[in-house]
C-alpha cells in the first residue's frame, strides 16, 4: 500500500503526542503529592477565586486549590483505571486464548457467559454492582474489570480462531511441537496488535466510567477528591467560578484523549484493521 509510509509517520506523531500526555498522567500517579502546590484538603478563606499566581486554577467553594485537587484527585482516578484494566486484560487474554484455542463446548460456554455481561449497558451494570457491593476502591476495580473483560476476550479470540487453522501451525503440530509452544510462538504475536489498541481504548472508556460513577456519588468515598465528584460538587456555584467545572472537565478529557490518541497511533503503526 503506497499509503504505508504516510501512515507510519502519522502513527509516530500520534504516539509521540500520546506519549507526552501519558508521561504527564504517570507523573500525576507516581509523584502527584510532590507536584501539588497545596494539599488536597487545605482550605483557605479565599473561596471561589479566579486564577492567580497563588492558585493557578483558582479555588473552590471552601478555598481549596483546584490545581492541587486535580492532581491528587487524578491519582486515585488513574490508579483505579490502570489496575482495573490490567486485571481485565489478563482475564481477557486468558479467556480469549482458552476459548479460541480449545474451541468446541468450552468456547461456547465461555462466549455465552461473556455475552451475558455484554448484554448489559456497561454503565448500568457498573452502577448496579457498585450500588449493591458498596462504593469502595476495591469494588470499583472489580466492577470495571468485570465490565470490560468481554470485549478484550473477544479481541483476543478472533485472531486465535483464524490462526488455529493456518498451515504452518498444522505443520508444527504434525511434527510434534507442543500446543503451548505453538500458542506462544505463533498465536500470541498476532494477538498483540489488536489487543494493544483495544486496551488503549478500554483505558479511555474506563476513565469515563470511573469519573461518571464518582459524578453520581458512587466513586471512592470522601475525603479523597476525584475528578468526577469535583465536577459534581462544582455545579452548585459554577457560574461564580467556572474553573471549578472547567478544571475537572479538561482533566477528564485530556486523560481520555491520551488513550484515544495512543490507540489511533497504535492503529496506524501496527496497521490494524485499517481505516
Amino acid at each position, binding site marked *: 500500500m503506497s499509503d504505508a509510509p504516510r501512515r507510519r509517520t502519522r502513527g509516530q506523531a500520534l504516539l509521540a503526542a500520546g506519549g507526552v500526555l501519558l508521561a504527564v498522567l504517570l507523573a500525576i500517579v507516581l509523584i502527584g503529592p510532590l507536584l501539588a502546590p497545596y494539599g488536597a484538603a487545605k482550605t483557605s478563606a479565599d473561596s471561589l477565586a479566579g486564577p492567580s499566581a497563588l492558585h493557578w486554577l483558582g479555588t473552590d467553594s471552601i478555598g481549596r486549590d483546584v490545581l492541587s485537587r486535580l492532581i491528587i484527585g487524578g491519582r486515585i482516578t488513574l490508579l483505579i483505571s490502570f489496575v482495573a484494566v490490567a486485571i481485565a486484560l489478563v482475564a481477557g487474554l486468558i479467556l480469549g486464548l482458552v476459548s479460541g484455542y480449545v474451541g468446541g463446548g468450552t468456547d461456547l460456554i465461555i462466549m*455465552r*457467559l461473556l*455475552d*451475558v455481561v455484554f*448484554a*448489559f*449497558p*456497561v*454503565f*448500568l*451494570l457498573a*452502577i*448496579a*454492582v457498585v*450500588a*449493591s*457491593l*458498596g462504593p469502595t476502591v476495591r469494588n470499583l476495580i472489580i466492577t470495571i474489570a468485570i465490565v470490560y473483560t468481554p470485549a478484550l476476550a473477544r479481541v483476543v479470540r478472533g485472531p486465535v480462531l483464524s490462526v488455529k487453522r493456518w498451515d504452518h501451525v498444522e505443520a508444527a503440530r504434525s511434527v510434534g511441537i507442543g500446543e503451548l509452544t505453538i500458542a506462544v510462538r505463533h498465536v500470541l504475536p498476532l494477538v498483540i496488535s489488536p489487543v494493544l489498541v483495544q486496551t488503549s481504548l478500554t483505558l*479511555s472508556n474506563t476513565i*469515563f466510567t470511573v*469519573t*461518571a460513577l464518582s*459524578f*453520581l*456519588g*458512587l466513586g471512592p468515598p470522601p475525603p479523597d477528591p476525584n475528578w468526577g465528584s469535583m*465536577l459534581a460538587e462544582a*455545579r452548585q456555584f*459554577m*457560574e461564580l467560578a*467556572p474553573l471549578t*467545572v*472547567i478544571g475537572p*472537565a479538561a482533566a*477528564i*478529557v*485530556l486523560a*481520555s*484523549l491520551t488513550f*484515544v*490518541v495512543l490507540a*489511533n497511533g497504535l492503529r496506524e503503526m501496527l496497521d490494524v484493521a485499517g*481505516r
Partner: protein
Amino acid sequence: MIRMVVMRLLLMLPILLGVSIVAFVLMRALPGDFAQAAAGTNLISPETLATIRHNLGLDRPVWQQYLQWIAAALHGDLGTSFVTKKPVAGELLPRLAVTAELTAIAGLMALAMGGATGLASARLRGTTDWVVRVLNSVLLAVPNFVIATLIVLLFGLYFPEIGIFNYVPFHTDPAGNLTSMLLPAISLALTVSVTISENTRAAVLEVSSQDYVMVAKAKGLRARTILGNYLLRNALTPVITVTGLQLAALLGGSILIESIFTIPGMGQYLFDSIAARDYPVIQAIVLVAATIVLLVNVLVDIAYARVDARVSYE
C-alpha cells in the same frame, strides 16, 4: 426466514436467563440485610423483622426466591417499592416512557449528525475528511456528562434567562416537552454520533467502490439518483444497524443526563433508588433495561440478516 428468526430468539434465551440471574443476585448479595432495608430507617423489633423477612420470602432457599421473582416478573409484577410501598411496575412505566422519548430523540440526532458527517467525509475526502476524523477522535474523549455539565455552565454564564431545567410532560405541553429535551438529547447524542459517523464513512466508501455504482454511472443517471437509490440505500443499512446497537450506550448515558437536567426518567429513578436503598426498584430497572437492550439487539440482528440475504451472493 422464519427459521432464522426463531433460531435467533432461541439463542437469546440463555443470555436472558443469565441476565435475570445477575440482576437477582446483585441485589441479594448485599452486605446489609434485605429485610432491614425494606423496613427502612425505622427501628423495629426482631419479631417484626422476622415477619417482614417471611413476607418477602427471604426464609426460603435462594433458588426458590429467584423463581418466584422471575415468575412474578413474567406476569408484570416487578415487586413493591420499599419507599413508596406501591408496585414498581406502575412507577416504572411512565418513567420508562420518558427515557424512551429521550433515547429516541438522541438516537435520531446521532444518526442525523453522524450520517451527515460520515457521508461528507467519504464523498468529499481531502480536508473535510481530515477535519471530521480529528473532531470525531476528540469528541470520543469527552464523556456525555462532561458535555452536559459544560452546556449547563455555558447557558448559566451567557444565557441565564433561558431556563434549561424546565421539563414538562408530553401530554401537558408537547412543544415545551420537546424543547426541554433538546439539550439533554444533544449531550447524549454527541458521543454516539462518533461511532455512527465512522461507520457511515466506512459503509459509503465500501459501497462507492462497488460495481453496481459504476454501472449506475454508465447508465448516465443523475448524480442525485445514484446517491439516493444506489449509494445510500445500500450504505444506510449497516449504519442503521449500528445505530440500533448503540441503544445500550444511550440507555447507560441517560442515567447521567437525566440527573443533570432533572428529567424524571428511568435513569433518574435508578439513581434515586440507589440513594434510598430501594432494592426491588434497582433490581427491576436492571432487568428491564438489559432485556430491552437484548431485544433490540436481536431485532437489529434479524433485520440485518434479512437485508444481507439480498446482498450476499455465493
